[in-house]
């Protein structure tokens, strides 16, 4: 077992608490950077797509996992980011790396505006409100033809920088995505150790206690919603380049639910969970598809096999590990850290004082 000897206050807010973190995340970083050396174009392309979902997941994680506000409408913001990116590139002569933050900020502004009425609601009502958002946006995408291309969709101009054209299925664009992901991760981690982030967590755990500590609940929630939607919009902008062709069915309610599923499977309340969840949601269906090629034809050629198996695995996961993949990882880590004395009850939920609030 490891004891961290604290010699200063800023040790509490460091990203990496001790050398172990440096080692494991260092290895992960090296593995991610060298991935194109040992993975083919197919795997790299899937990873790029997973990264765009992971960024959107990080946005949603800030809202659901850290502020405690559920959203069934994040596919809408994913879509706004994607279409904004496509529109910016088609309308103005700007580099895609310049257009991306503009698309993200634009999405965030829309999120802020919508948050003002939406976040007056809580719990199930908020879920319904954001659900409506998902449905409304899909209709807008279908009807606003001059900007979105309607049902037919809209081609996205290829990502290019100083005359170099990126191939969205290849290693060069993977590095762009990876860099953006690391940037967003750093931003989120930094936000969570700032007063704003602490206020968000306080609101999640108990609004009454947070208010009594002097946290402005409305402002905190709205800020969280704005930041969350901006990050999701950035993920959408990246996704637009990955896809190269946008159609309204890419941003419907199913995707909203996929996002929520992604962060729950990954592990609510951890940034790592958003990334693990995105890897599962993107890579698992492809893994099932590949496995299908090796099955006997009588089973492998059965239509509807992939969604069926995918659904079963997810149901099993939520039944047997409600804390998600990252929760399971923490349990395994703790098991070895304190080897002979691990207790199951360590991770049991202990917030008995919140009973009245859970009704809302």
């Amino acid at each position: 077992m490891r004891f961290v000897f604290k010699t200063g206050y800023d040790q509490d807010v460091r990203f990496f608490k001790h050398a172990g973190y440096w080692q494991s995340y260092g290895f992960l970083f090296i593995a991610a950077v060298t991935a194109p050396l040992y993975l083919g174009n197919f795997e790299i392309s899937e990873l790029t797509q997973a990264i765009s979902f992971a960024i959107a997941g990080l946005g949603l994680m800030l809202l659901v996992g850290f502020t405690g506000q559920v959203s069934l409408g994040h596919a809408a913001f994913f879509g706004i980011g994607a279409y904004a990116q496509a529109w910016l590139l088609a309308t103005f002569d700007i580099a895609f790396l310049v257009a991306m933050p503009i698309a993200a900020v634009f999405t965030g502004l829309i999120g802020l505006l919508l948050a003002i009425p939406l976040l007056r609601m809580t719990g199930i009502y908020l879920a319904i409100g954001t659900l409506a958002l998902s449905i409304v946006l899909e209709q807008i995408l279908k009807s606003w033809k001059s900007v979105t291309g309607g049902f037919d969709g809209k081609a996205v101009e290829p990502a290019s920088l100083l005359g170099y054209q990126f191939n969205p299925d290849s290693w060069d664009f993977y590095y762009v995505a990876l860099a953006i992901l690391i940037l967003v991760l750093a931003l989120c981690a930094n936000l969570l150790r700032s007063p704003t982030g602490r206020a968000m967590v306080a609101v999640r755990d108990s609004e009454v206690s947070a208010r009594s500590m002097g946290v402005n609940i409305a402002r905190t929630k709205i800020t969280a919603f704005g930041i969350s939607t901006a990050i999701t919009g950035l993920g959408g902008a990246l996704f637009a380049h990955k896809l190269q062709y946008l159609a309204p069915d890419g941003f419907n309610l199913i995707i909203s639910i996929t996002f929520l599923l992604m962060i729950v499977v990954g592990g609510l309340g951890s940034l790592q969970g958003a990334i693990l969840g995105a890897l599962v949601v993107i890579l698992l269906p492809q893994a099932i598809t590949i496995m299908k090629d090796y099955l006997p034809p009588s089973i492998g050629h059965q239509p509807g096999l992939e969604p069926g198996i995918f659904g079963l695995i997810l149901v099993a996961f939520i039944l047997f590990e409600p804390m998600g993949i990252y929760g399971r990882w923490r349990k395994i880590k703790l098991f070895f850290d304190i080897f002979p004395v691990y207790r199951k009850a360590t991770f049991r939920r202990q917030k008995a004082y919140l009973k009245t609030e859970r009704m809302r």
Partner: protein
Amino acid sequence: MKLKMKALLAGVSGAALIASGAASAQTRGVTDKEVVVGSHTALTGPVAPWGVGATTGTRMAFDEANAKGGVHGRKIRFIVEDHGYQVPKAVQAANKLLNRDNIFAMVGALGTPMNNAVLPRQIKANVPNFVPFTASRQMIEPFHKMKFLAFASYYDQMRAATNYFVKEKGFNKVCAMYQDTDYGREISQAVNDELKALNLKLAGESAHNPREKSFVGAITKLRKAGCQVTMMGTIITDTIGPFLTAKKLGWKTTFVGNIATYDLIVSGFKKGLMNGYYAMTSFEMIYPDTTNPEHKAWADAYQKYAGKPHNGAAQLGYGSGILFLEALKRAGRNLTTDGFIKAMESIKSFEMTLGGPPLTFGPNDHQGSTDAYLAVVENARWKTLTRPLSY
């Protein structure tokens, strides 16, 4: 020392020669024993019956060829990916097919928006788009050597239909009712272009959302315009809906659709309610009780292979499999993508689908046929009325 240097140089250049030789001999998706062919289609979702039928038909054709030892000693491995009629999933499926499975050709990819989304990267990867399962004009125009279409496009079909109803039936009040999508607008364009050529004007039109459920307003509008015949740019539910609405309102008129509505669901809807609906088609639907022995044999073989009766999509899918096999045969043992395209271009008067028109391709003509027949629903079954129509 000098000698060593020379030997090294010779070695390096030798290796380079071998490498370049190997590169030219190696075609993607082709090995000594196998040709890998892919398809992205809808096995789930709203158009699953088409996707499942088409891929089962194609697979049946390939399995028959494989049972006889394949083509030029190569068996065909057919990998089908499901996109559920969603663009992002189609792109993901195409990523697997193009980058992992390294397919030689895409056969029968389904859906216009899905094809549009996948085509740029597919063409970049040098993979022919062989007879996609959509008759949109974009599948053949602008011309590209990688794009092949077997039959008349929606545009061709509806121009021919308009021409027929004006010239042979003497109608002069022609209307258009279409989905407000690329697909629907292609049909409206065809009707307008043909009317212009005949010095007529469109009498009335109505555009709707593909998920529209109520058609009373649209039908009332068309009725007020006095339409004698309405050209339909619709698919399944939005074909049945307006047709029955007109019937219910007591309006006697004619509706004409295209191959997208030439389906057993449309003809068989509530056993006869759709009687009198016209559709353009590129092939003739085979029914299980057909008297043609050749058709009967095929229908029985399909039933045995798939464990259920075929639909129109299965007929087309089987046909595109046969056409692909023919092109492979002509391309010879030394199979390359360019060789395959040349072989396709050499096919003349080839009957691909039972009850379909003969297909002829050429160096700058990658559309097999522009012929289309007119069919009508009688006793809840499709009946072909005319010789091939054109404009």
